[in-house]
């Protein structure tokens, strides 16, 4: 690490281009923790949003109109409001209301800010997923449903074994797009002091006043993360491909 660090120190002294992350151990540790937090937020939200999408799309097919209505309005709410405002509503609004009192009478939050960020982001992306899965479900040919019924599958069984796998594969490209958007949206967690990449970079550049360098590093890291996700989703699409569906 020493020659690399030395070169970056030279870069700072000679040209004023200051990449403290390269030569300062404390800043490097901070930035890596931020990167890990972004990855943690992304992975947790992706998994949770897929679950929400599957469950929500199933509930949207329910026979009970009240249940269908509930799903419809919740989905519309999360699709038509800004994720930052949702996050503020959850963390600064709802969190204050849901306060319990601990042992010595001190207020205890129900969950921490990272958990609220994951919850808010998952609901945001999950709502979009519900719509995408619904479109996928509608694209499943009726002949499949009739065949399943004639084979004696229950309504839930049809959904679980026939409809969901096919709908998932059909909607995967669009879901892919949504998940990439989710990874980019994790940066709004900055506003509630979740120590993800943008927050940590802000701290570093407040101390070292090296804004453009940190911006560049941040941009490169996000592009790398998105690149990895897209690569993975492409592999997953190919692995799940069913002949006769999609391009």
């Amino acid at each position, binding site marked *: 690490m020493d020659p690399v660090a030395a070169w970056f120190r030279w870069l700072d002294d000679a040209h004023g281009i200051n990449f403290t992350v390269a030569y300062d151990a404390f800043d490097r540790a901070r930035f890596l923790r931020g990167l890990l937090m972004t990855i943690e937020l992304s992975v947790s939200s992706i998994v949770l949003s897929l679950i929400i999408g599957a469950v929500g799309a199933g509930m949207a097919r329910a026979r009970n109109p009240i249940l269908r209505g509930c799903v419809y309005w919740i989905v519309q709410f999360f699709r038509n409001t800004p994720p930052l*405002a949702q996050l503020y509503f959850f963390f600064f609004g709802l969190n204050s209301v849901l306060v319990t009192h601990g042992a010595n009478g001190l207020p205890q939050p129900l969950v921490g800010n990272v958990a609220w960020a994951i919850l808010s982001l998952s609901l945001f992306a999950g709502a979009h997923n519900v719509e995408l899965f619904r479109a996928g479900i509608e694209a499943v040919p009726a002949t499949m449903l009739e065949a399943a019924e004639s084979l004696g599958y229950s309504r839930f069984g049809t959904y679980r074994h026939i409809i969901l796998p096919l709908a998932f594969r059909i909607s995967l490209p669009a879901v892919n797009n949504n998940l990439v958007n989710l990874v980019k949206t994790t940066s709004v967690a900055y506003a509630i002091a979740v120590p993800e990449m943008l927050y940590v970079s802000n701290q570093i550049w407040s101390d070292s006043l090296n804004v453009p360098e940190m911006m560049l590093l941040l941009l490169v890291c996000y592009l790398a993360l998105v690149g990895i996700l897209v690569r993975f989703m492409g592999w997953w699409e190919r692995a799940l491909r069913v002949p006769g569906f999609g391009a």
Partner: protein
Amino acid sequence: MSTTLSRYAVAMSALALLLAGSAFAAGPAAHGSILAALWKWTPFLLGGFGFNLVISALSMLIGTALGFALGLGLIARGRLMRAACGFVMNLFRNAPRLVLLFMCMFLIPFKLSLFGTTVPLPGWEKAVFGMSLAVMANVAEILRGAVQSIPTAQWESAESLAFSRFQTLWSIILPQCLKRMIPPWMSLYSIITMDTVLVSVLGVGEVMTLTGEALASENNDRLLLPFYGYVLVWFFLYCYPIGLWTARLERRYAVK
């Protein structure tokens, strides 16, 4: 049309109930003062919301113009042109919008000196520029998708009728594309409008910043939920109709 209106009416009444409900949840004595506080700050907050709408409108305008140009570059015949435009598009699509905004706010100077005149660049203009870049990349992709969805037969027919590439695009392909582009473009407008709240993180005085300041001035934590809920309601009331309209247009323009 009537289902759309009735859905919208249900939404509005439900939200009104929700807002009143959250005010009531704070206790009977307080609810009057919460609604009073909301009413007192409404003109101030509405000004902020209007600012959000202006930022999104300008960004869409500039970004769409730039996006058309970039989109044409994406379907160009030269490989180098396609690669370069593809790179630019991917760069601005894959970068988080908050990071793009940060970059524009910090890296663009506060004023430009061109040929003796100085042009001041306030923060919100830099934010518009940043958003326009994001819009540009998305519009380019929408254009490319629309052009690709036109059957190849159209291109071949045009070629057999001795249309040049430019004439083919201008007279045949693009007019058909425009209709197909409208639903995703409207969807993009909705997304960009919602993303304008990101500029609050950079200190621009739009509705989220102003809500924070109003709350600071009131200094009453029972107002948190109602105030943030209020802002959410406004965005919902603006973006939900756009979503309904987009869905209607998609059904109308669905190509078999």
